[in-house]
């Protein structure tokens, strides 16, 4: 059951790479939050009660509710509906993402002694999620898309920390700080400030600072 949820989590990345509608991106972030909540609640009962309570509450409230709500608000406020100017066509995006995800699955079936400390499927999917997110950041043009892909990358890292088959609640908890970090700064302050200052949310407009003539 948990493995099914983890695979579903990986598949959400394929949808993310094929759609240009920002509201659909926000929905994916919400779905990933819910999936992470279910993975924590169902698959990691071996952890201490305090740690597991903290993780489930954090994933449900921050990842599945607060961040998507905030993103939704920003999308509406900035009237950014689509990110149509990606550097690569959707078909190729899907193809490359699928290949990366396939690579993640391959890691999980390879039998290497070094992998004995980890949950292979969780590790493989998490790694491919991080790589797909990083790759999508490089090809998308809207600041909001970049922020959303950063959040999916952070979700991938969260899954990676869950893949370590030893008790490291402190490690996972400090990872949670990344969420707070995003919520406070990247979303709360900069996205709206950039919109107010520049009147647009294109990454290409943030290229005034160069080594030649600027003040």
């Amino acid at each position: 059951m948990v493995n099914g949820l983890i695979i579903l989590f990986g598949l959400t990345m394929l949808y993310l790479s094929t759609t240009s509608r920002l509201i659909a991106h926000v929905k994916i972030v919400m779905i990933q939050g819910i999936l992470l909540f279910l993975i924590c609640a169902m698959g990691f009962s071996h952890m201490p009660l305090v740690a597991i309570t903290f993780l489930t509450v954090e994933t449900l409230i921050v990842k599945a509710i607060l961040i998507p709500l905030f993103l939704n608000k920003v999308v509406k406020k900035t009237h950014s509906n689509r990110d149509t100017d990606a550097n690569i066509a959707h078909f190729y995006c899907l193809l490359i993402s699928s290949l990366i995800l396939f690579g993640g699955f391959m890691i999980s079936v390879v039998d290497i002694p070094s992998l004995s400390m980890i949950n292979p499927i969780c590790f493989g999917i998490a790694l491919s999620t991080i790589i797909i997110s990083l790759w999508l950041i490089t090809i998308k043009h809207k600041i909001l898309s970049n922020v959303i892909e950063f959040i999916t990358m952070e979700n991938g890292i969260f899954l990676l920390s869950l893949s370590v088959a030893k008790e490291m609640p402190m490690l996972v908890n400090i990872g949670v700080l990344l969420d707070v970090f995003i919520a406070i700064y990247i979303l709360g302050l900069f996205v709206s400030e950039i919109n107010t200052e520049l009147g647009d949310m294109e990454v290409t407009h943030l290229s005034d600072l160069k080594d030649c003539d600027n003040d």
Partner: protein
Amino acid sequence: MISLVFIIPIIFCILAFFIKNNKLNNIFTLLYAILHASLGAIYFIRPDIMLNNQYFNLNSSNIIFYIILSVVFLAVSIYNIGYSRNLALEFDNKKMMHYFVMLLIFVISMTGSILADNLGLAWIFIEGTTLASAYLIYFNKTKHSIEAAWKYVFICSIGIALAFVGIILLTIATGNLNSLNYEDMMANAANFNHFWLNVSFVFILFGIGTKMGLAPVHFWLPDAHSQAPSPISALLSATLLNCAFLVILNIYKIMLLANCIFCARTMLMTMGFLSLFVTSVFLYRTTNYKRMLAYSSIENMGILAIAASLGGVAYFAMVLHLIGHSLIKASFFMTSGNILELFKTKKIKSIRALGDLDKKTSWLWIVSFLGICAFPPSILFLSEFFIVQTLLIQRHYILCALFLILLTIILFAMAKVVIKMVFGQKNEERFEKAKANLNKITPSMYIPQMALLTIAFVLGVYIPKFLDIMIRTTIMG
């Protein structure tokens, strides 16, 4: 006692929040700087007093980094007395309060990352430095400053996230050890899994290396350093980069103890030379003198990475370089603040005849340049000499030649700019406008640079015994 360096500034922040008085803000900052330095002094005067608690530890391996932060922060606090008076003419008390509160939080975060005896905790404080300094970079609220702050936050966030991946992979490498404490990890390093250790080092080096400004993950640095207010640029360059370097150094020591050094050494060496190459190429194109200083920081971080990778005498050189770069670069950035106050522009071509306008600022500018270019008796001359010596001893002849060529190119590019700015033909109109701003430069905007440069040049000819011991224990620790 060590908790005081965290508790006192928080009390100051709360007081500053309610009082909103510029003079009082300066007093709070200065008091904190003195307290900060006092703790370092206690380490030497009363070694019997244990400066540690459950999470933080002032010991032989981080004392140099702590002292550098103390000295630079004290200099910046003095500089801020004059600088904030000029800032207060443009901004209201509330905004000035934000400036000082964020400055204190920034220093608390850097102190935390240096004193943390746990990798996880150090990571949290490194993240904290991004939060605090992003506001300071964005302080002027111009289109350019928001662009710089956005790039800084976004690129560093990705870097910090990747470093976290590295930490997760490190926990896999540690096997049954359930701790991220540096001492525990160093004690058990021999049992670590080499494959996972190498992979984790790659992630940590790229992640924290982003914060340190190593090429090819340095892109935020010239923008952020050039857009931040000058005292903040000084702190960013002279202390923040060191904090990131300390984390990398601690992991590198673990790699060394685990006898898994080849990959780490090669990567540090490659990124070091790449940083020198990037600086030598971009310095020729830059038309902004604060960006020039930022590129110089990338160069010096590259030199630190090269020294760390070489080992042997180069370790000693690394610590000397760390001290020298921090002192001289802080002075350089603060002097650039004086020039900006006078000419109100960062364009190199708009600044000429600085020597005729303000003798003290022009001398500080020239001496800072000579110091950073390792002109003897600058302490950087010693460090770079030892690095070249180590390269020759280890028979890296081609790398040694490359190192010297790249440094010469960088020296030439910087010299061209500095000479033009100080001795160039003056534009009467601009010169008269700048002359009207001379009263904005108060004595407190000269004294800290003079002190820092004096220390940097005296250390080039005489290293006191206590400092020598400190450097040696840092290397051993």
